[in-house]
């Protein structure tokens, strides 16, 4: 009899105590607004810097002379699990009169890319890298199909 009455009140005591501990935790954060963790995204674009290894999308590096390193060997195409990369190659006749394979278009289908990063180590000439850009949203699906070599660009000298 007394045991059960004691239990009744001790139950209430432990219950109220546990609830107050919980309220203490949340209450702490109300009165410490400096600990707020969220950020204002489009406003903080200037400070927002992604880590340099972040895999945003595949880009082709061009130097100041509008030259890239891609030989059109299709190693990245073979390494890609999803058929994201499509290389349209062309033949160029150089000064010595030899035919040489160059790229006409390096087509990159962003909509199919899973950002696995397998194409980057596959490239023998380090022509492509992953950029840190993560804002891929566009209004038209066709804009996701990108041509990575810039118009008028040509292969760097000495890259085979």
């Amino acid at each position, binding site marked *: 009899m007394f045991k059960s009455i004691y239990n009744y009140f001790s139950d*209430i005591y432990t219950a109220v105590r546990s*609830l107050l501990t*919980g*309220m203490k*935790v*949340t*209450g702490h*954060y*109300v009165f410490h*607004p400096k*600990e*707020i*963790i*969220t950020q*204002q995204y489009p406003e903080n674009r200037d400070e927002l810097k992604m880590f340099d290894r972040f895999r945003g999308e595949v880009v082709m590096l061009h130097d100041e002379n509008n030259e890239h390193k891609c030989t059109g060997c299709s190693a990245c195409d073979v390494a890609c699990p999803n058929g994201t990369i499509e290389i349209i190659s062309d033949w160029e006749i150089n000064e010595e009169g030899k035919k040489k394979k160059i790229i006409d278009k390096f087509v990159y289908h962003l909509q199919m890319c899973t950002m696995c990063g397998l194409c980057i180590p596959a490239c023998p000439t380090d022509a492509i890298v992953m950029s840190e850009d993560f804002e891929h949203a566009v209004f038209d699906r066709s804009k996701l199909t990108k041509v990575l070599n810039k118009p008028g660009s040509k292969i760097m000298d000495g890259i085979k």
Partner: protein
Amino acid sequence: MNRLILKINIYDFTPLTQAIHDALSESFSPGITTLIEMVIIGIAFITLFTILGLVMVYAERKVAALFQQRLGPMRVGFFGTAQTIADAIKLLLKEPLMTKNADKFLFNLAPFFVIIASFLAIAAVPFAKGLQALDFNIGLFYIVAVSSLGVIGILLAGWSSNNKYSLIGSMRSGAQIVSYELSVGLSLLTMVVLTGTLQLSEIIESQQDGWWIFKGHIPAFIAFIVFLVASTAELNRGPFDLAEAESELTAGFHTEYSGMKFSFFFLAEFVNLFIVAAIGATVFLGGWMPFHLGNWEGFNLIMDFVPPIFWFLAKVSFIIFIIMWFKWTFPRLRIDQLLTLEWKYLLPINLVNIVVMAFIAMQGWHF
């Protein structure tokens, strides 16, 4: 008109209301005067509802954000202050949808039931001295009776939606409100033992020399806690939001509502929160009565300098904040635990408390 402006006194609204009444009586017959007064009060309350809805939804979102280490709405207006206006416009423009085979009449009626119940209840809330639409001798009883009418709307909404989730939600709500009505009533009754009156203005007058929560010893404090818990349950707010229970019943009784009809439920929930906080402030914390400390004349004078309406709003905000604190901390109860809490804990405690309080009042031990 100048006569009216001269009568404005933020410490006492009685002269102003009296002057309006006199001015109307001069030119109209008593019946039309009452009618015009009713229309004025109605417009005033509709405006108040809008403002309350806008302010309290914003406050809820900001407070929730603070509890959760977030910033909350920040985009629309300065610190997101215009966010709720944008939301209201969105709700106005939304298409009112209805499920196939829904009971059209009841489906459309339900939101009005809920909002009218809040309208009826807010009429008796004393905002400041002389600023009260209905002040009659059973004010407290009237509020308790009327505020539970809203459950009919919830039951209708759940039944007419032709959705099993809604039905489960509304049935839960019915069981919940019927049970918790008891505790709210009894905890207020505990204080009525002390005040000796049900008239809200007199309850406030009786707290001239100190609020009942301080004057009434521990029983008053227990009654206050019970009132807070029970009224949170009556409001269908977390941790007692079983009628909505978004992780179990998607949105409970208002699953099928959209647009303005949904916003009626939403608005009623927040206005009810205000009303409950107002009753709590009136009965336990002295309503618009400033904070007075015994014989400290200087201190009391400074406190009197703050207008009563601000005292009232501050107390209401305090209670609302505590109820929000509950919501953003605790997990939801299950329906059987909810009823256990009421019938095995709150009700017996309340009954013992009321006996203790009666004894205290009889012996005159309260201050």
